[in-house]
């Protein structure tokens, strides 16, 4: 059944060049790998790739293995990774290649998925493995900031991967469509790309599901599959029927005869109550009823008493419909729930905020919630009032470009300029103050990248790159 190979596998990058959109990662990774291949193992014998799912972390390793003719030894979350399992790999890793054997590269995928209970001793064994290995080791993780991974971070070259741009995802999808001779609409591909939020793998899976199901990829089909399908009433019809109901049973029928799920139904009604009702009293009554429906939903979630589901429908349907006492019935224009759209649109921004909160929470020893409430607002003020000072804090916390963008908003480029100036100054010898250096040796604030000598080298490289104007990510030493 070879023609049935899933497209994610069929169109996996074969060459390093095929892994697009991750130039910075490659810039760090390839020289490191070359050192290995030239027989001079680098100081950090492992590299840790991190970043969101589906952006090419594993692919890059596979492509490199393919290109340099390395034997790929892989271990991932589906394998047991107890102490003894890692040690098995370690045996292989500790031996030099035989005369005829191929060189090897070891891939430990998803180290953040190493389980505390089932993979007892696994992390310690990996550290041991890194010490003794005679072959390059690459690890991947979505979230490398977990406290238990700290030793791994310290022992590894940290290589960040970016979320893929929408444009790039569309390109890839297009290429696949061409190769598969699938008729496709640009708008449809764009829609898929938007929804996948930089996760190429899920985009390709979606594409394949649609293409194989329908033989073509049009915006209509995509929308239908991606939003809700399989319904007697579209959300618009559902709303129309609901708001026109004179009797409780009609309204109940409206909300139960749609195949939107209950949470989505509530969102549609939430969005459109003020579109339909004009009198504030009606609006309020309707929302009170909807709020009761939401309370039942909360109770179902907490107690798993599905019996209560029908009360959700009673209050979201008849309750909202019968709230109208003063408003005249009118033909209203209904809108798609803004909250759902807004959440999709801001997903990346929210992720950045979480990452930022997480990074800072660990440094000042408090919860993410507290950081979001008590620290980020003040940081934001500093970033938007004093770009020069902000730049120093950005350097102090190794903030990524995205984080800086989030904090500085319109002043982003100014903060960046200051950072570049700081980096230039750092290239001059003996400017770094001792105070900061001591800080940096503290375990939890330890620079993720390397010791100081290495750092300087990396700095030079990154600042040179920056002068060329390339790159979207800063991983700053110090």
């Amino acid at each position, binding site marked *: *059944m070879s023609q*049935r*190979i*899933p497209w*994610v*596998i069929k169109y996996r990058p074969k060459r390093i060049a095929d892994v697009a959109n991750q130039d910075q990662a490659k810039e760090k990774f390839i020289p490191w790998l070359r050192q290995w291949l030239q027989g001079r193992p680098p100081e950090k014998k492992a590299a840790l790739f991190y970043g969101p*799912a*589906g952006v090419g972390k594993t692919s890059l390793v596979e492509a490199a293995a393919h290109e340099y003719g390395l034997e790929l030894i892989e271990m*991932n*979350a*589906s*394998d*047991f990774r107890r102490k003894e399992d890692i040690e098995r790999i370690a045996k292989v890793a500790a031996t030099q290649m035989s005369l005829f054997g191929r060189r090897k590269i070891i891939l430990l*995928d*998803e180290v953040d*998925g190493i*389980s505390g*209970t*089932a993979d007892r001793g696994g992390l310690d064994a990996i550290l041991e493995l890194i010490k003794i290995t005679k072959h390059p080791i690459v690890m991947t993780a979505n979230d490398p900031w977990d406290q238990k991974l700290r030793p791994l971070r310290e022992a590894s070259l940290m290589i960040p991967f970016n979320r893929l741009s929408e444009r790039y995802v569309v390109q890839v999808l297009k290429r696949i469509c061409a190769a598969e001779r699938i008729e496709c609409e640009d708008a449809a591909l764009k829609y898929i790309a938007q929804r*996948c939020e930089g*996760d190429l*793998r*899920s985009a390709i*899976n979606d594409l394949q*599901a649609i293409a*194989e*199901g329908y033989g073509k990829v049009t915006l209509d089909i995509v929308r239908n*599959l991606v939003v*809700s*399908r*399989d*319904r*007697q009433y579209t959300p618009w019809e559902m709303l129309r029927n609901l708001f026109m109901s*004179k*009797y*409780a*049973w009609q309204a*109940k029928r409206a909300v*139960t*005869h749609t*195949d939107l*799920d209950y949470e989505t139904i509530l969102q549609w009604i939430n969005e459109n109550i003020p579109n339909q009702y004009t009198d504030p009293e009606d609006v309020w009554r309707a929302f009170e*009823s909807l709020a*009761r429906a939401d309370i*039942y939903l909360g*109770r179902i*979630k907490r*107690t798993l*008493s*599905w*019996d*209560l*589901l*029908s*009360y959700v429908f*009673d*209050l979201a349907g*008849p*309750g909202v419909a*019968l709230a109208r006492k003063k408003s005249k019935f009118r033909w209203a224009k209904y809108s798609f729930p803004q909250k759902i759209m807004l959440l999709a649109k801001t997903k990346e921004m929210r992720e950045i905020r979480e990452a930022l909160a997480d990074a800072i929470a660990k440094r000042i020893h408090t919860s993410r919630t507290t950081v979001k409430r008590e620290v980020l607002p003040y940081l934001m003020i500093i970033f938007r009032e004093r770009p020069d000072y902000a730049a120093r804090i950005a350097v102090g916390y190794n903030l990524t470009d995205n984080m800086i963008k989030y904090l500085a908003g319109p002043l982003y480029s100014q903060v960046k300029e200051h950072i570049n100036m700081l980096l230039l100054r750092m290239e001059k010898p003996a400017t770094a103050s001792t105070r900061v250096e001591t800080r940096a040796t503290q375990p939890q604030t330890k620079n993720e990248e390397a010791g100081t000598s290495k750092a300087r080298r990396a700095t030079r490289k990154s600042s040179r790159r920056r002068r060329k104007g390339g790159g979207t990510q800063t991983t700053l030493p110090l």
Partner: protein
Amino acid sequence: MSSIAELLWAEKYRPRSLDEIVNQEEIVKRLKKFVEEKNMPHLLFVGPPGTGKTTAAHALAHDLYGENYLQYMLELNASDERGIDTIRTKVKEFARSRTPPGVPFKIVLLDEADNMTADAQQALRRLMEMYTASTRFILIANFPSKIIEPIQSRCALFRFTPLKKEDVIARLKWICEQEKCKYTEEGLETIYEISEGDMRRAINVLQAAAAIGTVTPDIVYKVVGLAHPREIREMIKLALDGQFQRARDQLRQLMINYGLSGVDVIKQIHREIFSQELKLPEELRVMIADYAGEIQFRLVEGADDEIQLSAFLAWLTLLGQKMRASS
């Protein structure tokens, strides 16, 4: 199939193939496409209990592989051990095992996947990818939000909704014809209402009722041990008319005679509130439903049956008073 299947209509008339599934048309249509193409992505079936998720998964497998489909499918449900260890051993082994010629892939069916730990889901996620050439996963869940993001993005999502009245009744009628049993329209409607969109339950009730005689509402209520709606409505009316004590006596009678628990009573009340037999201003129906829900929740949390139901009737009485006062 053994004789049990013959005895139990729910088993006997469980759809074997996608064609026999009479509802969820859109879903069935999409699933049939997969059979045609002999290909499919990983699937995630979500929806409340009793909406046919497991049945659909089996029917799909049946249509793909024929009668003996079970040899190509590994089924793990909630009562099975499904920690990270099982995923790494049992599931992996099955996924790795040789795919027979002519079969495009094997199926792993995981029921109540939302109850699996995050660890186990992580391991699963990798398996889904590694063995995607030879194995497809069907995950079944009540709450999609409890499935980790990377798995969701690897699956085609299918939302199952509670069965519609006409679908359930059509199915019941068809079974009645097969089994040559007598029924009235109202009898079947009563079954639908009692079973709340759960097809299996509906068929069980039908069978029990048919064993006694013609399937009428009376017989149905008797069989399931529920009060006759008329009695429930009487109780509601008594309370609304201000006859609180009499309503309470009626309540006691119902609980004793039918052996109803507090939740049983509230559920029956809830059903009657929206019935047209009960003459009520529409707005009041919603208010009563809301309060009934509140009382049911309290009972679920462990409050006392009698005190809570008294409180409910008392509240109805007060409502009736207000209603009369305002008119």
